[in-house]
C-alpha cells in the first residue's frame, strides 16, 4: 500500500517504475498471460502454501527470470512456523520407507521436483495418496 502511494505521488524514481512495468509486461509477453493473471497466480501460490505452513505474507516475493528460452519462476516465501498442518494429521517423518517411493517418483515426472516434500509427508497415509500425487505439480 505504501509502495502504491509512493508510486502514485511520484516518490519512487520513475526509472524504477519503468523497469518494474517492463519486467511484468515482458513476463506476460513471454508466458502469454495477462499481468492480472500472474498476480492471481502469485496469490494462489501463497494461499496454497499457507495451508500447510505459516508464512510471512508481507515478505513473500515471487520473481520471474528469463533463462535462455524459458522463464523460471522463483518464490521466496519466509516460513514463520510449521504449526499449520493439512487437514488430515500427518504421520511422523520416521515412518518413511523406501518401498513407498515408487508412486511418488512417477508423479514427479509430470511436474517439477519441488512438491516432493509435501508428498512425502502425505504418503504414509492410507487413502489420499493418488489424489495428492496427481494434484501436486500444480502449485509450482
Amino acid at each position, binding site marked *: 500500500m505504501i509502495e502504491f502511494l509512493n508510486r502514485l505521488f511520484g516518490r519512487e*524514481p520513475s*526509472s524504477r517504475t519503468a523497469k518494474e*512495468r*517492463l519486467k511484468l509486461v515482458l513476463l506476460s509477453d513471454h508466458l502469454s498471460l495477462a499481468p492480472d493473471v500472474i498476480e492471481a497466480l502469485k496469490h494462489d501460490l501463497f494461499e496454497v502454501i499457507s495451508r500447510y505452513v505459516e508464512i510471512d505474507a508481507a515478505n513473500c516475493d515471487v520473481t520471474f527470470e*528469463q533463462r535462455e528460452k524459458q522463464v523460471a519462476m522463483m518464490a521466496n516465501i519466509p516460513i514463520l512456523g510449521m504449526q499449520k498442518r493439512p487437514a488430515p494429521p500427518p504421520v511422523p517423518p520416521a515412518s518413511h520407507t523406501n518401498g513407498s517411493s515408487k508412486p511418488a517418483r512417477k508423479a514427479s515426472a509430470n511436474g517439477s521436483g519441488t512438491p516432493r516434500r509435501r508428498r512425502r509427508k502425505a504418503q504414509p497415509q492410507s487413502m489420499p495418496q493418488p489424489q495428492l500425487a496427481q494434484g501436486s505439480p500444480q502449485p509450482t
Partner: protein
Amino acid sequence: MINQVVQDEVPVAGDVPRVRGRAIVVTSGKGGVGKTTTTANLGTALAALGASVVLVDADVGLRNLDIVLGLEARVRHHVLDVLEGVVTLDEALVTDKRVPKLRLLAAAQTREKDDVDTAAFRDLIGTLRDRFDYVLIDCPAGIEKGFVNAIAGADEAIVVCTPEVAAVRDADRVVGLLGDDRKVELIVNRLRPALVRKGKMLSVDDVNDILHLPLLGVIADAPDVIVSTNRGQPVALDPASEVGESYRAIARRITGQDSAAPEIPREKTFLGKLFGGRS
C-alpha cells in the same frame, strides 16, 4: 571477444578462397528509435576505417537513409529496380564522395514492402556480401514483411533501443524473432545521463538486465545528431563531436580493432556545455 570479426570463407570462381563480408541488419521493432541514424553513421565510420561498405535501405516506401547521408540528390535507382532487372547493381549503387568506400543502395519510395520478394532480397544481400566487407541493412520499424525481408540475408543483427519501456519491450520481441542463429548485439541510443542520475530514465544496465544482449555501444541523446541530419552530414564524420566518436568507437568494435568495454556517455559539465554546442 564477442566482437571478433567472424567471416566465413566462400570459394569463388577460379577457386581462390575469398573472405565473405558480414551482413548486419540494424533493427529495433519500435519506430523512430534511431535505426537509420545508426546505419548511416556506422556505415560512414566503417568506411572511414578503410572497409568497403554498402548500406541497403530496406525501408521500402519510406526511404530515409539517403536523406540522413545527404545523398538524396544522387539517387537514380533503387533496390526494386535491381531486383526487377531494370538496372544493374552497379548502376543503382551511389558512391559517397566524402568516404569513397561507402555505397548506398536506396529503397523505392513509391512502392510497398509487399512488393519485395524475400528470397530475391536475401540473394541480393548474398551478392553484396561477396563484394563488400560490410553490408548494413536499415530495417523498417515493425515486424511484418519489411522486417522479414530485411533480416532474411543478415547473419548478424544490431538491435537499437532507446531507454524507454515501449522500445525495450519491442526490442525484446525482435530479439525473439531474430532467432538463435544470428549474432545479436545491442546499441542503446538517446541516453540522457543526467536523467539517468536523477532516476528519471532507465539506465543502460536497466535496459540490458532485461534484454541480456552483448553491448556494442551507447549513443547519447545529442543535438549534434539532429544538426548533422539537417545538413546531411553524418555526425561520425565530425572529428570534434562526442557522439561522432561514439559511432567511431562502435565501428572499431565491429571490426575488432577495439575490444574494450563500451563507454557509457557521461553528463556534460557546465563548461563543456558552453563550448561544446553546435548549431
